[in-house]
């Protein structure tokens, strides 16, 4: 099975990042890391590939800079990576991102596309579904368990009550939730081998896009403003004199939690 895994490099979440004041785009440092969410997609991809003697190819749209996030996914065991990197892509919204990734994945060929439910920097959470639309294949989302065999994709789709079992014919796109599996550590051998694995770098033009098709010019979305989250208010401390539970019940009832 030929498995495509979307892997995004993002600014290290441990370090606060800036938004540029004109467009509110994330200012991307040279050193970006693999989005933690994508480690789960990579792990699922590797497990399915191991079961089917298949391959895992990573797809990422990323500005030029270090590829340490991609190398991390390669060190986990992915076979190769396709990175679309082009100054013309700066400012691309979710729709353009999906269009570009779809073109790269189509070019490479695939049986299954795996993505995280949403990135940990932009959080739009719509790229995978748009990607499926561009590819013209079914999209199954919020998978907490994934099986793919005999031309069928079967997932457990996370719901508030439990999960639904959902099926689609392959090829298809699936999004996996964090916590779906325990992502493996990159082994030292994997780390040593990662630098020898092929990383194909493509421009927008390589995928047949003109400058107006992508980036800010090709994007219909404009971020008009950004409002900081209000600072968290100090909590209320209830001293337990043996009857604090009554007070807590009252607070929960007032908040309509119970």
């Amino acid at each position, binding site marked *: 099975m030929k498995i495509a895994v979307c892997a995004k490099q993002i600014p290290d979440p441990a370090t606060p990042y800036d938004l540029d004041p004109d467009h509110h785009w994330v200012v991307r440092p040279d050193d970006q890391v693999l989005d933690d969410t994508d480690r789960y997609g990579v792990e699922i991809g590797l497990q399915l590939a191991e079961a089917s003697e298949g391959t895992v190819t990573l797809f990422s749209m990323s500005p030029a800079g270090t*590829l*340490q996030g991609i*190398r991390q996914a390669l060190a986990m065991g992915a076979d190769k990576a396709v990175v679309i990197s082009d100054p013309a892509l700066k400012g691309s919204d979710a729709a353009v991102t999906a269009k570009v990734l779809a073109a790269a994945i189509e070019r490479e060929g695939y049986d299954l596309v795996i993505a995280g439910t949403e990135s940990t920097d932009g959080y739009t959470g719509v790229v995978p579904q748009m990607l499926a639309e561009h590819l013209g294949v079914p999209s199954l989302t919020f998978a907490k368990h994934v099986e793919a065999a005999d031309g069928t994709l079967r997932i457990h789709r996370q719901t508030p009550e439990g999960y639904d079992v959902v099926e689609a014919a392959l090829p298809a796109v699936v999004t996996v939730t964090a916590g779906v599996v325990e992502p493996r550590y990159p082994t*030292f051998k994997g*780390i040593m081998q990662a630098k020898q694995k092929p990383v194909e770098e493509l421009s927008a033009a390589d995928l047949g896009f003109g400058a107006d098709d992508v980036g800010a010019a090709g994007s219909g979305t404009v971020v008009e403003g950004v409002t900081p989250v209000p600072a968290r208010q100090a909590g209320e401390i209830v001293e337990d004199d043996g009857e604090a539970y009554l007070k807590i019940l009252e607070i929960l009832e007032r908040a309509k939690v119970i």
Partner: protein
Amino acid sequence: MGATIRPGDHDPLDFLGIDALLDDEERLLRDTVRRFVAERILPDVATWFERGTFPKEMAKEMGALGLLGMHLEGYGCAGTTATQYGLACTELEYGDSGVRSFVSVQGSLAMFPIWAFGSEEQKRQWLPPMAAGEAIGCFGLTEPDAGSDPGSMRTHARRDGPDWILNGTKMWITNGSIADVAVVWAQTDEGIRGFVVPTDTPGFTANEVGGKMSLRASITSELVLTDVRLPGDAVLPGVVGLKGPLSCLNEARFGILFGAMGAARACYEAALGYARERIQFSKPIASFQLTQRKLVEMMVAVNRGMLVALHLGRRRDAGTLTAEQVSFGKFDNVRQALEVARTARSILGANGITLEYPVIRHMTNLESVYTYEGTNEIHTLVLGEAITGISAFG
């Protein structure tokens, strides 16, 4: 002049920006071990320490990651650079010196002599399972009466037809009671030789050392060899004399000079966090001048020691590192780390003596690290000889 940097822009945990001296691969490896330590070691290590155990099953997890014999080439080993090995040791010892000791002993003291001096058969038999953590190794050099002076060892091996017969006692042997194989050094008619001894060989016993107040998350044992009969091919063919075991110790010390900075960093981080949050006299104790002095001394020691380690790692990878330079690193980094741990303990006050914080654990561990693999005094004399040309060993 570059952009204006405000005081608050400095990363208190990487003040000098040492991270930028690492390449992508080094950072990925470092971060991988850091994550492993955070997820698999830190949640339980205080319990291991309190109970005086090291869970043997961790060996396989470490093996799967590639930690065991990581800097050796072939035979299932990862083949990392020396600097990468050092960085891994820093992260492991951020967890616990005992955990790092396990990896040092397995890789540098047990696997390394087989890799460097062993026969092809010995390498094929032992290195792949040891790299995988399926077989655990230990290193028998020190004896009850032979510590800094290993040449005075009493353990001896004599020929009996084609076989060897070993007798003697080894002491303070990390991993001894959980080991599947011991590399034992013994006097022979030809000089000191190394022997690969499966621990199920009749006459071999390992007794765990109890009552330790340091390195409690690590197994320490006494090995007793009573007429242990080994086949002729059990000897390591590639080396005769003290240079065999001393070269292993040099490997391990290299890991220690990196590792100690991990323990120091853990103590510094704990003290910095505590000092910012602990309120006395209506303000954080970090606002007091005496506490700031301590925090700054710790921060400087951690950064300086890491620079020394990294420099020595680069020299090692370039093939220009001398044993005396390793002594420099072991001598200074461990004593600095111990000082950092003690200072951190004082900042944490009473909280500093419980296992809720990592500080007292690191502090007592470092008391062992200070004297093992060459005491501070021996390294001082190695350095003294190196700069004066005069040996003070007598």
